[in-house]
């Protein structure tokens, strides 16, 4: 089967000047041949089933409808995991995707945290060689539910990866997303949260390191329609060599989301002169009674900090490496799973200079 598609992904919810080339991203000739083989470790209290297609077909995702087209063209099934109402799952659901050389794999997941339940999902994406893959994850956090999705990307430098997330939260439902992007050639990623239940909550902690001629293209959207909703998007990254990164982050306050709050922050450490950093953080506000904040700091290390650490015997390169590692460690430390943290440390040690 040849499913080569030209795709437009990661479109900004409100467009800006076209000459900036940030409104969306065009990806040519995306091929998807087969359903990826996922190794899932399903703990007690989580129900697993395979469905012909996603149960959340109407749910918007961050990367947009072209990923839906890609999935639909491939005809792959959806792996669906659900927690049981009122039950807190002690152990995480682990989904490991190890991609083989020259693969063109696809995956579709539905994650459902039922009412009054808690569920943690740890997804790891690994490859040692070149290839491409696309993953779409749709989720739903029910009433008073807490859903944690942790994604760790440890892909080869020649790997192309599309990682699309979208879901919604009912009243008092919470979605907490942790993404650590440590490797990959071209990565297109995004997460969307529709906060349609009163007092629902979305938090995203994103850490990324992009080096070589790598490209990272991101789109995070918090769509807040209900009262007393809250969003928090924190991105912290490191760019080196000739890396390119585009971060889009949107807090969208709709009419009726009174007493809602949204915060987004990006902190980017630029190490080498060949890097390109693009950042476009949006706050869209159609409601009076809200508070929205955005902050970004982009550049090199503070001169005072650099001086202090150099006076302690470190050279400049060591200081930068230490601070880059510290940024990723800060995100890694949020992952409530020792095994995953060890794996991340091991990957970092193997790939450190």
């Amino acid at each position, binding site marked *: 089967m040849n499913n080569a598609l030209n795709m437009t992904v990661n479109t900004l919810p*409100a*467009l*800006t*000047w*076209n000459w*900036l080339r*940030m*409104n969306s991203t065009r990806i040519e000739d995306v091929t998807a041949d087969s359903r990826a083989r996922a190794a899932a470790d399903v703990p007690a209290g989580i129900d697993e089933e395979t469905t012909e297609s996603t149960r959340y077909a109407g749910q918007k995702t961050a990367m947009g409808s072209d990923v839906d087209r890609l999935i639909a063209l491939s005809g792959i099934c959806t792996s669906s995991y659900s927690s049981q109402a009122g039950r807190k799952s002690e152990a995480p659901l682990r989904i490991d995707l190890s991609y083989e050389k020259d693969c063109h794999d696809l995956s579709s997941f539905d994650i459902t945290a039922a009412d009054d339940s808690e569920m943690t999902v740890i997804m790891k994406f690994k490859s040692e060689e070149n290839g491409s893959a696309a993953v779409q994850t749709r989720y739903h956090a029910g009433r008073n539910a807490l859903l944690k999705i942790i994604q760790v990307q440890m892909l080869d430098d020649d790997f192309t990866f599309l990682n699309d997330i979208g879901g919604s939260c009912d009243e008092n439902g919470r979605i907490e997303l942790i993404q650590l992007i440590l490797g990959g050639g071209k990565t297109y990623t995004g997460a969307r949260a529709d906060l349609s239940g009163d007092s629902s909550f979305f938090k995203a902690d994103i850490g990324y390191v992009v080096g070589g001629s790598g490209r990272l293209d991101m789109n995070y959207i918090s769509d807040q329609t209900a009262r007393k909703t809250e969003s928090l998007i924190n991105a912290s990254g490191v*760019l080196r060599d000739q890396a390119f990164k585009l971060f889009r982050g949107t807090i969208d*306050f709709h*009419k009726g989301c009174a007493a809602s709050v949204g915060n987004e922050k990006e902190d980017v450490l*630029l*190490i*080498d*002169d060949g*890097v*390109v*950093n*693009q*950042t*476009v*953080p*949006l*706050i*869209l*506000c*159609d*409601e*009076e*009674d*809200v*508070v*929205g*904040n*955005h*902050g*970004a*700091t*982009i*550049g*090199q290390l503070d001169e005072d900090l650099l001086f202090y650490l150099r006076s302690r015997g470190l050279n400049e390169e060591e200081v930068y490496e230490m601070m880059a590692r510290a940024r990723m460690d800060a995100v890694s430390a949020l992952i409530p799973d020792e095994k995953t943290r060890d794996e991340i440390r091991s990957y970092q040690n193997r790939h450190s200079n």
Partner: protein
Amino acid sequence: MKEKTQVNDINRSMYDFRYEEKDAYTVDQGLTPEIVEQISKEKKDPQWMHDFRLKSLDIYNQLSVPDWGPSIDGLDMRNIVTYVRPNTTMKGKWNEVPDDIKNTFERLGIPQAERESLAGVGAQYDSELVYHNIKKEVSDQGVVYEGIEDALRGPYSEMIREHFMKLVPPRDHKFAALHGAVWSGGSFVYVPPGVSVEIPLQSYFRLNAPGSGQFEHTLIIVDEGAYLHFIEGCSAPKYNVANLHAGCVELYVGKNASLRYSTIENWSKNMYNLNTKRARVEEGGKVEWISGSFGSHVSYLYPMSVLAGKGARSEFTGVTFAGKGQNLDTGCKIIHAAPETSSYVNTRSISKDGGISTFRSAVVINKNAVGSKSSVSCESLMVDDISRSDTIPAMDIRTAKADVGHEAKIGRISDETLFYLMSRGLSEEESRALIVSGFADNVSKELPLEYAVEMNNLIRMEMKGTMA
């Protein structure tokens, strides 16, 4: 139950008066090669300008309207008269200006301001300058301030040809091309090296004719080590048909020179304000934009600074007030194209009574702009629950040796602040008025006193509404 203060629109009564167009010469509605030829003939353009206009028209017809900003569907160029010449020529004394036009500017306070606080004034009525004057002591310093069309035919013609629409080429966007085709009026300023013009020059643009467009061109060259403060004002009476303003401002700031460009824009609410402003700043130079956007139905306004020389600087201070029926898309663009350049952006926007304000910016730091710094701060205040406010800032950094900071805030008047002021004896209405006018102080404190007072009066007077 919490009560709300009704904050009124900006009071435009002092701007909303009109005189009948008497014996004015106009071209037909629409935009055709024949109309452009007709304007060029009226202007007695040199051949290069005639050709430039027609080429710009070609470009206009090739380009699309923007797909990213407020809707301009209500603007139909087939209904716009692009050239209206009042029945007078440019004068150097107010008492020689026809009474209706003179009265217009008297009511706007321009002659009085000239007497009290300006080094020179240019006044444009519809498509033509009707008055231009510069104080003798300023012209004695070698400062040139005259109508750009006169300058085009005078000793500075080559200088104008070298600079005209070089910063804003017609290909830049559709309405820059439109401007290139039908531009008329505007001012030319040249400040010689080392000359500091201590008091400001001002141009005021008044659009009086319904269904017409104003396309003035402002070209300012501040030579090495010189200083100038230029003030631009504009207004129009309100009509129930669309009017269009597509002016163009090109500023050249020389090595170690400094230019402050202040604008209080108060177009009527039937105006489509699609204006383009751009500055090129050489080594050690500085441009300061002070921008107050209060009027128009739809605005696209983003002054751009191109920091072309080492150590060049740009500061942008803006306030936008969007009331009923207004969709004001404002902000700025900064291109850091040389090492050690710096930019500072500080804006405030207020949305009320269904108004929409959008802050839009771009900070681009090129690969060669090592050691550059940029700081952007934008704050938006939502005054009621039927308005809208968006912030769309973009940053494109192409060197590691840069330092960029950005912060944006959207919110309403906090209950704590209100409570604090009310506990000091102010009514809720007074407290809200004080908070909102203080919110816009970033701009008013940068203006000359007379203009700051005018701007504050505009806001403060109307913030004192009644309890709903």
